[in-house]
């Protein structure tokens, strides 16, 4: 087959979202659509295809981008648009089944209030039932998702109007629109702007990103050894970490409908901000420690983004987006045992770098087989405008709906996203621990979750930790190459 490790990447055919998260376009909305008439929808698609923002070759990045448009489809969407059975069957099982199955609910920890029965979208309507599994199925009516990014609110509404105005006559129907918010502050970043994006708990988000081989980008992860993943870890049609083509509708040469596409995982995660800071403040008072420091231990970074392993004593503005570090092999603060950054902290377990086992080099290689490109955006008004933890801790609950539209891209949903959520985030035994799921996004089977801070002479345990994040809806999408969208537009039903 002769698959190359650093292949020629076809930038013009790849949706730009793979390459960049559009930090310069802070206004965004995700629109969920159902196809009511495939014939008309195809006409709409053919027009849309020309407006989709492609990735750019090195040196050709636009300076004045005011907006960007992207399209993702569910398995049912591809079916409805008459993609042939032979092509459909080539998609991996996870994508075909969707997120709401017994098997996947257990893997992902979508139980109780997070169960598909209680989702706002993504699952077929069914009897709400807090405890049972597998009652609901994936929503067969959810077909497309339009991802719209713009530099400001007026531009966003202008684009929305131009794309969605004649929706009903285009054979499409809007299921729901998911709005977003850009959170920043209270401190500034080195350029003098409010530090962001943050998520609702008040921490800088979206820092660690893998560098996709052959696809440099200003916003992408740094091309340093240990952070570069093969192109096929994200894009179909290219060699993955095993030197194979990812499963999907491509032929032995990587050509075909799937080429330059990737799978987009979307999970609307509600965040209980008051619950989080209440718990942290209560525990901190009990153990006579600083609440912000405890919260930082849970995350693995200070609120401004500074990694604990780099700066255990406190935040440093110059390290806000720093990501080129390891744990055990850190030159200044080697941290194999978690004394600086706890073993169970969110960032250490969702990307364990060199501490997956006791062989740092092997660890780094194994960790990199489970990387994702993250493109999430927050939604809902912040509890406190400037995201100051000191204020977040004191304010009464306003019961408002807020959280994160978690979005990630990967070529193998089961080996990448699901693996991270299941084995690293939800697993209470991660890193040799006993009852510790991920303090932010993990789910523990029993009632009693704990968070352990390793220290000398002996560890300190924070017990009875509730769940701070609940699922509100989600689906597995395919983010096709642009030629594939044109192909979809031309298909005969």
């Amino acid at each position, binding site marked *: 087959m002769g698959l190359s490790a650093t292949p020629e990447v076809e930038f013009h055919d790849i949706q730009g979202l793979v390459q960049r998260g559009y930090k310069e376009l802070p206004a965004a909305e995700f629109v969920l659509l159902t196809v009511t008439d495939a014939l008309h929808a195809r006409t709409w698609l053919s027009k849309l295809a020309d407006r989709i923002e492609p990735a750019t070759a090195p040196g050709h990045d636009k300076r004045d981008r005011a907006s960007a448009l992207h399209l993702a489809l569910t398995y049912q969407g591809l079916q409805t648009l008459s993609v042939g059975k032979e092509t459909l*069957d080539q998609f991996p*099982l996870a994508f*075909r089944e969707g997120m709401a199955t*017994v*098997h996947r609910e*257990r*893997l992902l920890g979508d*139980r109780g209030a997070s169960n598909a029965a209680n989702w706002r979208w993504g699952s077929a309507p069914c009897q709400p039932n807090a405890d*049972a*599994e*597998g009652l609901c199925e994936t929503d067969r009516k959810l077909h497309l998702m339009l991802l719209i990014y713009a530099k400001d609110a007026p531009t966003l509404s202008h684009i929305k109007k131009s794309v969605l105005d004649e929706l009903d006559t285009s054979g499409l129907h809007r299921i729901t629109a998911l709005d977003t918010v850009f959170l920043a502050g209270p401190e500034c970043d080195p350029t003098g702007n409010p530090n962001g994006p943050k998520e609702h708990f008040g921490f800088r988000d979206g820092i660690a990103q893998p560098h996709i081989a052959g696809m440099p980008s200003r916003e992408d992860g740094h091309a340093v050894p240990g952070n570069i993943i093969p192109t096929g870890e994200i894009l179909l049609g290219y060699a993955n970490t*095993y030197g*194979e083509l*990812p*499963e999907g509708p491509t032929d032995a040469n990587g050509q075909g409908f799937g080429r330059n596409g990737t799978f987009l995982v979307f999970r609307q995660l509600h965040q209980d901000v008051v619950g989080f800071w209440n718990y942290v403040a209560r525990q901190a008072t009990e*153990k*006579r420690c600083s609440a912000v420091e405890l919260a930082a231990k849970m995350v693995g970074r200070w609120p401004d983004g500074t990694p604990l392993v780099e700066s255990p004593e406190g935040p440093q503005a110059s390290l806000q987006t720093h990501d080129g570090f390891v744990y055990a092999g850190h030159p200044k603060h080697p941290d194999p*045992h978690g004394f600086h950054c706890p073993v169970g902290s969110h960032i250490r377990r969702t990307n364990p770098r060199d501490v997956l*086992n006791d*062989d740092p*080099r*092997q660890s780094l*290689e*194994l960790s990199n*087989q489970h990387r994702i490109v993250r493109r999430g955006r927050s939604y809902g008004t912040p509890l406190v405008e400037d995201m100051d933890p000191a204020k977040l801790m004191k304010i009464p609950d306003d019961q408002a709906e807020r959280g994160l539209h978690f979005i990630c891209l990967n070529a193998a949903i*089961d*080996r990448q996203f*699901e*693996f991270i959520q*299941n*084995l690293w985030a939800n*697993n*209470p*035994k991660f890193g*040799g621990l*006993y009852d510790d799921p991920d303090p932010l996004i993990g789910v523990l*089977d029993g009632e009693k979750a704990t968070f352990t801070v*390793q220290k*000398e*002479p*002996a*560890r300190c*345990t924070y*017990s009875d930790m509730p769940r701070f994040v609940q699922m509100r809806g989600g689906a597995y999408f395919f983010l096709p190459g642009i030629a594939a969208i044109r192909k979809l537009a031309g298909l005969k039903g």
Partner: protein
Amino acid sequence: MPEQSALTVLFPVRDENVVPLRQLLNAVGQNITKEREVLMEKVHKLLPPAPARAKERCFIEFHKLTTVHFLRWVLLEAATDAEGRRIGATLAFATDYDGPLHAHVDELIGVAGAALEAVFSFCDPAPAPGGLKSYLLDAQRPYEAFYRGHPGRSVQQIWGASNQSEEELRKVLGKELDTLPHPVTAEDTVTRVRRSAGQSGWRSASTAGEPQKKPQLNSKLLWVIAGAILAFILFAPMWLVGCVAASTVVLILLLVLVIGLWGTALNRLDGSDRTRERELLNRQGPPPDVDGSKDPYVSDRSRKRLMIVTDLENRRGLIQNQMTHVVNIKPGKLRLRTLRFILWAVNLLGSRIFVEGKLGNIPTIHFARWVLIDDDRRLLFFSNYDFSWESYLGDFIDLASDGLTGIWCNTTFFPQTRVPAWTVIPRAIRLLLPQSQTGSQSAKRLFEQGARREQEFKKWTRDHQVPTQVWYSAYPLLSVVNVNNNTEIARGLFTTHTGAALGTWLRKL
């Protein structure tokens, strides 16, 4: 120290008994936990309802079994061997138990006699009244290889109902830690946790079993050997030195030759095996649906089997999973001999080298066994492992692909494998060398194909998995790492630690 062993019992099942037996087994499985009940109801919807009479006899008080680590019943439905001959349905019963065998079987019969009789009455022959013990003992099958993730620890020591298990000790010590004032010195911490252990009845380290230590070539012995060689070279007549050197070279050359010829023969066989499999596929056609089994030898090629298998995984209330995997051995004596030899080697490595809870570098396998069944026509694999199937398979592929490929390349429809016949020895030497200065882990592999064909290998594994109708774990909430860590806590409790060792022990709490 209790000896952990594996009991495997196999009985033929007549065709007309398959359906009622499956129903009964599902009902037995239902009664392990409430979660299981909810789950099995769903599985049951796919099956006709079990007769009420059978339901009454299927209740086993599993928690009363003190010798059982893991237990399973699996119905292997009728299938076809690699030469097209029919293999009848078989019932497999397996336990990972604390010896001695007779006491274990006596306990099984004492706790679950009625259910055992009910289940085995569907087999051919059925047990004679009062003859259950000899019935079971006579039907034992030896394993080719058996791996233990925490050797030497009894169920009681690991978990147990008594407050003397190592998990209970860890909890007692943990509670004490939570009440410690801050700041506190390491010495005070040890004094406090020791006192709390003493109050809970832990008197001395003798209560904690010593886990097996990795047999280390002690340095004294190495010096003696080196000295002997030196003395030989210095004092033996030159012709004798020359003779020994020459015969060593001849021996190595012979070894290279034998392995090379063996590998070449296997590679040639692989070609004809592949042709036969392709022809068979052409005759039998593709699986009935997209997720069905590619292997026409499998008894149920439909997507339904896969769905039952996956729905049995990641049950609530435990962090472990099980796998039952059955596949035909490729025809021919060479295949069988190769398989036997590799499993012999795996067994040796598993019981002599990997005794610290890690097979390869995989610290998640409690027990695994390989058994040749149906007159050596099929290979049966049972495993009890931590966490998800995806992580288990991933670990296997990333850390133990040579072992996997070595074993299962001798079975049908395994992803294409080429044996590096003439380079096995240099590759093996490179494998054994300490971390090479350059190059990644991938440079250190015997086989580049086989299990390294990640997606194909995972699909192949799923294609040959069989639903395990009854599965019981004695300590469902402990990982292998937990079990081994608990033992180290217990062992170190009354040891006098100094310096860094004190910190190391305290970190385990």
